[in-house]
């Protein structure tokens, strides 16, 4: 398919309207991430918010891309999850 239907998740998310919150609303307990083998958050997140950097041994959280679905909070008990502040975050124009 051509670029009118982008395949990469980053390009899909680029179409969305966000009002980015100033603080991160997704707080994984980083010490537990080090021990976590599966790192399921990096797989199931529909917005590819979570990425694990092997070299730095660090989980990066691109909270500004979050679609606020809640999948990560159900799959991992070590993520302190809340909604972005009033009026912040993603705003679907179609839904």
């Amino acid at each position, binding site marked *: 398919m051509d670029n009118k239907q982008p395949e990469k998740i980053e390009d899909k998310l680029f179409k969305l309207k966000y009002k980015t919150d100033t603080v991160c609303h997704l707080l994984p307990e980083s010490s537990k991430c080090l021990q976590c083998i599966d790192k399921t958050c990096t797989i199931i997140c529909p917005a590819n918010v979570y990425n694990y950097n092997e070299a730095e041994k660090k989980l990066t959280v691109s909270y500004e891309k979050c679609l606020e*679905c809640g999948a990560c909070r159900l799959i991992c008990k070590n993520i302190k999850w809340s*909604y972005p502040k009033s009026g912040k975050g993603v705003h679907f124009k179609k839904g």
Partner: protein
Amino acid sequence: MSGDFSENKVDVIVVGAGPAGVSAAITVARGGKKVVLVERGSFAGSKNMYGGVIYSHAAEEIFPNFQESAPIERFVGEHRYILMSEKDSTAISYKNFENKTNSFITIRANWDKWCVEEAVKEGVYYAPDTLVKELIVEKGKVIGIKTDIEDYFADIVILADGVNSLLAKQIGLREDIKPKNVALGVKEVIKLPQEVINQRFGLQSFDGLNHLGAAIELVGGPLEGMLALGFIYTNKDSVSVGIGVCLEDLKTKKIKPYELLEKLKKHPAISSLIEDGELLEYSAHLIPEGGYSCVPKLYTDGAMVVGDAAMLVNNVHFEGTNFAMLSGKFAGETALDALERNDFSSNTLCLYKKKLLNSFILKDLYTYKDVIKTLSSRTGSFLGYYPKKLNEFFSIFTCADGKPKQEKFRKFTLDFFRKRSLSELFKDAIAGIKIVFGILK
């Protein structure tokens, strides 16, 4: 409560301006009581996503004349089921030519906004850009909400805060959903010219002006072996394509949801329907699919929980928006009753559960209580092996290649049993009987 909070005190607060919340709020307002509808997004619908249709019976219950001004994309004129394998597909289509359509396709951001505008016209106080951080509880009774800015108080708080309902969890009405009881929905809205959609989907006009729409469910193919269904809905000048896939299955199979959707979009049965279209929006949302056994405690002193927050979804029939609207209405009616009696305890609010029990909502969820459980234990069969076999059958049935048919059908039948152990076939048969018997008994 004392009069200290009189400025910030109303009869009812409804949290969440989706279909459940707006229905609850408008019901309370119609009863002449003061109600505030709070929404964390900047506009109603901004945080919402769904797999396609609103049911007319439910819309009419809340908005009797909705057809005159509601933002309807298309009335559903066809239900199509496409069973896919990797290389072929078989479709079943149902159309009713008397135009007795009972559902319509709408863009949620437009529909939810319209509903709230109607509610405001009927006296609902609407507060967007308002995130409820927690409920205020005093002596075991919910008495108000804490927002980013200030506290508000009410005799009753109705929780319509969606599938994640952190508020229902806060007051112990429910626990977090287990990944096996929830589906992750991901969807793309793809822009195409109206005439192209009408042509590609074979959609007819019912009044010479407006064309009907199609609601399509997709089984197998890239989704094979998972508790997952795909869907396509034709909007007016765009098409929604998506999947609902069990969160647990994504986890165990280590599949990224957007990659799965991408595979589905590339399947030849689908790609020809959406080619040359332009992506307008990608979205994701959870769908509560646990059914009857996962319905939480529905009320407590001073609070009731409605819609997705109460996990009221019948996933077999893609029904959720109608459950949401009617549960909202029932909660609104119960709130009016409680205000009349001046009793906001569970003693009065239990009426809400009675209304749900007496309606199709909890009756249907009860009827289907074992269906999903049974189906999910046999996904490899019902959402994999059999759709594949069905395609194989039709590939033989429709093939003329100068070879005798008997040989081919014999081989098909022998393979059918050879490639599936008797014990597996037996388990499938039992599961099939369980499903049918479970619904009819």
